[in-house]
């Protein structure tokens, strides 16, 4: 078996636009390599192509062009072989709500060829491992959001996959359930030979869980590396100034003129706004920046200097889509 659990090359996926509208290009030459045994994060805004990538790699969807291998098998030529080696946890629930969690797990195991006894044992093992024994024999519809999501992940693991796909596993969960899910995913990544591909739009989630990251925007990977590598590409600090009823153009002009302030972003939302800029030396530039803003009559709130976070990496590569194009403009 090759060292890469996932190799996707130049994937393109277009959907018909319908009613005379142009085709939608969900994937536009996406290339991705994930080493076996790692957790890889696909990070990007909604509509960036994360879910489409997952659908292609799990054989649900056929790419318009390009090639991909998962667990050593070609997703287009050998979809059956891929399906035997993967688990897929979609954004929706994978569980039949009228069955109990245990019944769902047993059925999934039987469909994957386990005998009656082996399937029961496998279900019991997963119930135990994910700690929902007390809910295992109630209707799945009565489970809390967090437990339901654990059941979804357990269903993905029934077939002891080589590669597990988690499509936004924590979206819609409360913070406590999210933290619990993170623990589970971290635990999974410790297991030998399991590769996890995780899509998320939570930067914190990607930073905590992923060994490797690909930032996806408009159907392509726009940046890739470990979280630390990606952060290291941004030297210096981030300077953030909260603004009150700002005139975006004015702020951009004023801040852009401050020597040492780069990549100025102004983000306006209702009456509030925010100036985000990169600088080689944050603390030294707080004074000049504030002075420039005040002399231009811009009202401001809190000022902060921070080390690069994944947020900044993300903003830099996918910033246009992060919020709508009208509110964020990059001045270089």
């Amino acid at each position: 078996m090759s060292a890469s659990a996932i190799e996707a090359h130049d994937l393109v996926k277009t959907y018909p636009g319908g009613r005379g509208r142009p085709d939608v290009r969900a994937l536009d030459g996406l290339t991705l390599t994930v080493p076996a045994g790692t957790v890889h994060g696909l990070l990007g805004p909604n509509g960036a192509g994360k879910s489409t990538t997952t659908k292609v790699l799990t054989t649900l969807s056929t790419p318009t062009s390009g090639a991909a291998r998962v667990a050593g098998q070609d997703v287009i030529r050998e979809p059956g072989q891929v399906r035997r080696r993967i688990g897929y946890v979609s954004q929706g629930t994978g569980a039949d709500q009228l069955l109990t969690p245990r019944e769902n797990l047993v059925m999934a195991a039987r469909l994957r060829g386990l005998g009656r006894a082996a399937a029961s044992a496998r279900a019991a093992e997963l119930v135990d491992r994910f700690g929902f024994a007390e809910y295992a024999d109630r209707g799945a519809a009565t489970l809390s959001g967090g437990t339901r999501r654990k059941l979804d992940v357990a269903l993905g693991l029934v077939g002891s996959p080589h590669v597990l796909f988690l499509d936004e596993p924590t979206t819609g969960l409360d913070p406590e359930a999210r933290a619990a899910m993170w623990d589970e995913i971290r635990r999974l990544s410790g297991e030998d030979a399991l590769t996890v591909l995780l899509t998320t739009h939570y930067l914190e989630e990607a930073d905590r869980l992923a060994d490797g990251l690909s930032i996806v925007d408009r159907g392509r990977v726009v940046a890739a590396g470990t979280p630390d590598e990606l952060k290291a590409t941004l030297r210096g600090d981030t300077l953030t100034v909260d603004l009150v009823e700002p005139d975006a153009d004015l702020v951009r002009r004023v801040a852009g003129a401050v020597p040492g302030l780069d990549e100025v972003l102004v983000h306006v939302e209702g009456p509030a706004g925010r100036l985000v800029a990169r600088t080689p030396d944050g603390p030294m530039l707080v004074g000049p920046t504030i002075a420039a803003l005040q002399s231009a009559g811009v009202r401001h709130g809190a000022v902060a200097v921070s080390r690069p976070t994944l947020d900044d990496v993300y903003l830099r590569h996918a910033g246009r889509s992060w919020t709508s194009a009208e509110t964020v403009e990059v001045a270089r």
Partner: protein
Amino acid sequence: MSAATAGWGTQLDQVTRRWVTDAIRQPWGLGVAIVQPVIWIVLFGNVFQSVAQVPGFGHDDYLTFLVPGILMMTVLYSGAWAGTGFIEDIRSGVMDRLLSSPVSRSALVLGQLVQQLMICVVQGVMVLAIGALAGAHYSGGAVGMAVALGASVLLAAAFCSVSAAVALLARDQTALIGISTIVVLPATFVSTALMPAQLLPDWVATAAKLNPLTWATSVAQTAMSPDVDWGLVATRSLWLTALAAAVAWWSLRAMRSYQRSL
């Protein structure tokens, strides 16, 4: 060592079990499926009672004539909703999970069909029992009743597959409402389910001959009558089988078409 995949028989069995369990856990749905034919037998049986006195009716009493028709109507009216489960699965994400696992597409489609046919048999037995209680005579005995149920299963296989195919192609519950109002209701009246052919207007009688509901009804009517026309039973059963096979094949194609749309 990773698990491979189950044999096709096991897959079909598991998928069928899942749908049967789902049906049992929705007692309201099952209850309606059983109460509906009761209401029809009582209602139509009383409203149309006097039809038996019309010259040329050709049967002794209307109720005995009516039961085979109600049997087949029941199949049509519940079968129209057979695709609902697929729409729900597509919406929830269960379908995506199943399609990304090593499960045969035909097992997914046919497993659900088998469950529908099981419900159809339960409903059919109820219809015959209630008809008997209301005073219908089944001269054909156990064999006649079995043949009638067999015809209803063939009709159900065809019609539930239509519903499944439409569900997988349209992925919208309203499309199924369309089937039930635009197809099922007219089909009921352009058939010999409620009225013998000789009392129908000419054009309706002609159209009714092409209606699978008529084929199934005639099989059940003759099979439960004192002198069975086995030739009629054989030809109509053959037609129904061919139709069911063709539509089941279409529903399998619809499953593939759904996947291509992803």
